[in-house]
Structures are given as C-alpha cells and as structure tokens.
C-alpha cells in the first residue's frame, strides 16, 4: 500500500529471524519499498586472522572450521591447501579422494541449509526441516569420520587426520541413494511451488557484468550465467578425474540462485559416487616434518567452497607460526553487493534476496 509522505527507517537486525545470524541492515523504506539499505556486519567478528598469527600452522585448522561453519570441511581444505602449496607438499592420492568426498558432502550440507533457509525465509518452514533432516545424515557421516558434526578439523597439512572408518563407504552410498529421492521432494515442495516461484522469479536480478564487477562468486555468480567454478576452471586436487557438470542459470534472480544450489547438489552427488567407487588404498598423510616450518614467502590459493571462492593468503617468515593469514571469504564479498541488490524491492524481497545470497555470518565477520 502506498504509505507515502515520509520515508522511514527500519532497523532490520541484528536480532532478526531472517538475517541468518547476527547481522543488521538499516533499511530506509518508502511504504514497503526499500529506498536505501545499509548493511552493518561485524557482530560476529572474532579476529581469526589475528588469532592465527599466534598459532602454529596446524593449530590454525580448528579456527578455519569457524569461518563457514556450515561447510567446515571446505574451509579446512582451503587452508591446508595453501600451506601445502607454500611448502610444496604432495598429498597422497587416498587423502585427496577423502578430501573430495567429505568436501562435496560439506557442499551438499551447506547447500541444504541454504535451500531450507530460503524456504523458511519465505515462510515455508516445512522445507527447512526437510533439508535439515538430510543434513543431519551428512553430519552423522562427518561424525563418523572425525568425531565432530559441525566443526570438523579433519584435514591436516599433508593429508587428513584419520583414514575413513569402517562402514563409512556403505553408509555414504546409502545416503546418496536416499538423497536423490530427497532432492525430488525438495523440488516438489519448494522449487515447484508456484508461490515460491512468484516470490523468487525476477526478484533481485543480478546481471553477469555486475556480478563479475563486484567479485561475486559461487552459486551467486553462476546463477547470473558466468561459468566460473574453480573445480572446472582452475582444477585443484583431483577434480579433473571426475565427470560432473557446472550448472548454470542465466536470469540471475533469486529463483536461479536457489535452484542452482539444488542442481549443484545433484552434481556433488555424482562426484561423491565416482569418488566412492574408485577410492584407492594407501596412506592418508604425506611425510611431513614434525614441526611445520614453511619457507619464507607468500602464497595465495583458492578453492571453490559452497558459498563461492574461498581464498587463503599466507605469509610465512620461516617460523612455525604464520606471519599473516588472510581468508578471502566468499560470503563477505557476496554480501557487499546486498545494498545495491535490495534497492527498489519490497521488505519481503529483502529477505528473499538475502536468503538467496546464502551468507554465513561466521564467514562474513571472520
């Protein structure tokens, strides 16, 4: 309705049901239409980069868990990969396979949260619970592997902490079989729902040029039609060995960003199936010195995390503790464009757009 006359300021957050954590957006509204938005992050800032400077290389790993805690495996992976590159360590093949398996599982888990949260942001709470039901199974698998459900700390410099436990492979296969059915359920309940489509299609449209300009990455970028997935574009680990597609959508609206994640989950399932089928035997740790002292120098590596490009920049001064660690957090950079994206949309669309960006505040605020 047209409540014109005065614009009024609505302080959304830091405690709000759909800001996905402690995050605040100061919205200037005209009626229900957003005129201006000013996102205020930082409520979850813990200074992980500073903390890392006081810890040995290995000790940083548990802290990376706490970046994107929905896909902690991938965070671990991004960090250890950087250190490995700095030191020039060759990771055993079995370890790479395990990394791919748990990494893709983590990607599925993260996308499940995004999918469910998107549904619940739009008022469909049931979808949220359905996705969490399946996410629990992935977390069970993680628990089997490393003893933790959320903050895995599973990867080590030079490999992974432990070999896969007994019974993991069959259980994972069983999960994948079940999960394919679950995907159909999400598509029926959420994707195919006309109300959901009305709420998300052509809302918060992001052009490909703008997405590249704003350094957006991950599903947000690919939903705008830019096929920049590091697993294909700059393959790391053993991704070239697997056959999978990088799904692309072209409209760049909320629906595309949502649906792209659903499609990516299906692709991840494919990758895991292949990896499980061809899992080689062998050690899971490379031979590394007891005290990790990388040579002085700096390195920047990137992996494709569930939210986008996760980059790690490490400066070493030759001591056992990193001189400087910087994480390029995809959520943080993706969120930088929120203010532009929500302008001109309704309050309800702000929620949808924020949900479709899929941010994790642990990662944003670092």
């Amino acid at each position, binding site marked *: 309705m*047209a*409540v*014109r*006359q*005065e614009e009024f300021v609505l302080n959304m957050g830091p405690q709000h049901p759909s800001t996905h954590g402690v995050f605040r957006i100061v919205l200037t509204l005209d009626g229900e239409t957003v005129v201006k938005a000013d996102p205020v992050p930082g409520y979850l800032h813990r200074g992980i980069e500073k903390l890392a400077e006081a810890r040995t290389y290995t000790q940083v790993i548990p802290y990376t868990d706490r970046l994107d805690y929905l896909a902690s495996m991938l965070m671990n992976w991004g960090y250890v990969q950087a250190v490995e590159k700095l030191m020039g360590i060759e990771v055993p093949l079995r370890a790479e396979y395990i990394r791919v398996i748990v990494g893709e599982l983590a990607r599925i888990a993260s996308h499940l949260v995004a999918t469910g949260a998107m549904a619940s942001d739009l008022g469909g709470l049931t979808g949220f619970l359905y996705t969490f039901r399946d996410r629990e199974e992935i977390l069970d698998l993680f628990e089997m592997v490393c003893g933790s459900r959320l903050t895995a700390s599973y990867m080590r410099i030079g490999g992974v902490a432990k070999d896969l436990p007994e019974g993991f492979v069959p259980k994972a296969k069983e999960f994948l079989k079940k999960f394919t059915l679950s995907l159909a359920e999400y598509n029926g309940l959420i994707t195919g729902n006309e109300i959901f489509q009305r709420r998300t299609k052509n809302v918060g449209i992001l052009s490909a040029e703008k997405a590249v300009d704003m350094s957006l990455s991950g599903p947000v970028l690919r939903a705008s039609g830019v096929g920049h997935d590091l697993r294909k574009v700059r393959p790391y680990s053993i991704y070239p060995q697997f056959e999978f597609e990088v799904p692309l959508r072209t409209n760049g609206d909320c629906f595309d960003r949502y649906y792209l994640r659903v499609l990516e989950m299906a692709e991840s399932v494919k990758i895991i199936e292949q990896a499980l089928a061809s899992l080689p035997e062998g050690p899971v740790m490379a031979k590394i010195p007891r005290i990790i002292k990388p040579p002085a120098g700096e390195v920047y590596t990137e992996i494709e995390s569930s939210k986008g490009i996760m980059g790690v920049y490490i400066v070493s001064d030759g001591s056992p503790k990193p001189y400087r660690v910087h994480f390029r957090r995809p959520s943080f950079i993706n969120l930088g464009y929120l203010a532009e994206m929500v302008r001109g949309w309704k309050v309800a669309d702000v929620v949808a757009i924020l949900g479709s960006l899929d941010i994790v505040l642990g990662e944003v605020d670092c």
Partner: protein
Amino acid sequence: MKQLQGCADMENSLELIAFFLLAGSLLTGALMVVTLKNLVNSVLSLIVVFFSLAGIFILLNADFLAAVQVLVYAGGVCIMLVFGVMLVQRKDMRESNPVNRRFLIAAPLTGALFLLIGLVAAKSPWVKEAGEVPENTIEHLAPILLRDYVIPFEAVAILLTVALTGVLLLVKEVKDNGRSS
C-alpha cells in the same frame, strides 16, 4: 392477563434500559469523537458510536439496517478513515485533533439548536400508527428496495462506482517522472 401485563411492563422497562444504555454509549462515544485530542482515538470511538447506532436500530426493529450499519460503517468507513489518518498524519499523533477558536461560538450555537429541537420534540403530540414493524424485515425490505425503489437503488450503485473511480483518480500518486503509479 395480569401476567401478560407484567410481561409487557417488563419488556418495556427492558427496552428502556436498553435504550438508555445504548443512548448513553452513543452520546459518550460521540462526545469522545469531538473532544479527544488524538485523532486515531477519535476514529476508534467513532466505531463505538456506530455500534451503539446499530443497537438503536435493532431497538427500532431494523435489524437489517443494523447489520448494514456495522458492515458499512464499522467495517468499512472506519477502516477507511483510519487509513486516511495514517496517510495524512504521520508525525505527532497525540495532538492531531485540535479545536479552533470558533468553538466559542459553535458551542452555544449548537446548545441552542439542541434546546430548540428538544423542545419541539418534547412538546409534539406524537400520533402513533397502529401497525407494527414486521418481524422478518429483510423479506419485506428486499421487494421494496428492488421494485419500488429500484431507480434510486441503481442511481446509488452508479454513484458508488463513480465515486470509487473518482477516489482512485484523486489518490493516484503522480510519480516524479510524470507517470502515475
């Protein structure tokens, strides 16, 4: 017979009680409408007025009219007014309904008017018709409204349509670029 008489008495006194209750709330509400400082409160007490009015109508054997009153006024007009108030008055609602200096003249004038009409009403010899309002008003109203008064009825319908259109045109926002929303 006596029983019946008592019954009628009872009925009458109940009616009277009802009348005074309704009239009391009606007038209180009306006074609140014109005296309250907050316009929103005024509008909300208008709802009280309309409800009491509906009660009076029921007392006057006009139940259909009472329902119309509630539907149109309490349900429609008041919401419209509330919305209108919100649209035009955004800051400081507390003092939104002030009185101007003219009330110094208006108050005695209206008092006199009331006295005049009251006097006339009190002194008039009311000659009551023998008949009673039939029970089932709606069945009697419908044919009259749609047969004898069909032309005024249609005229009012057209009036409503035209007025609605006019309202839309008036309120339609003109955006800065000259196009209307």
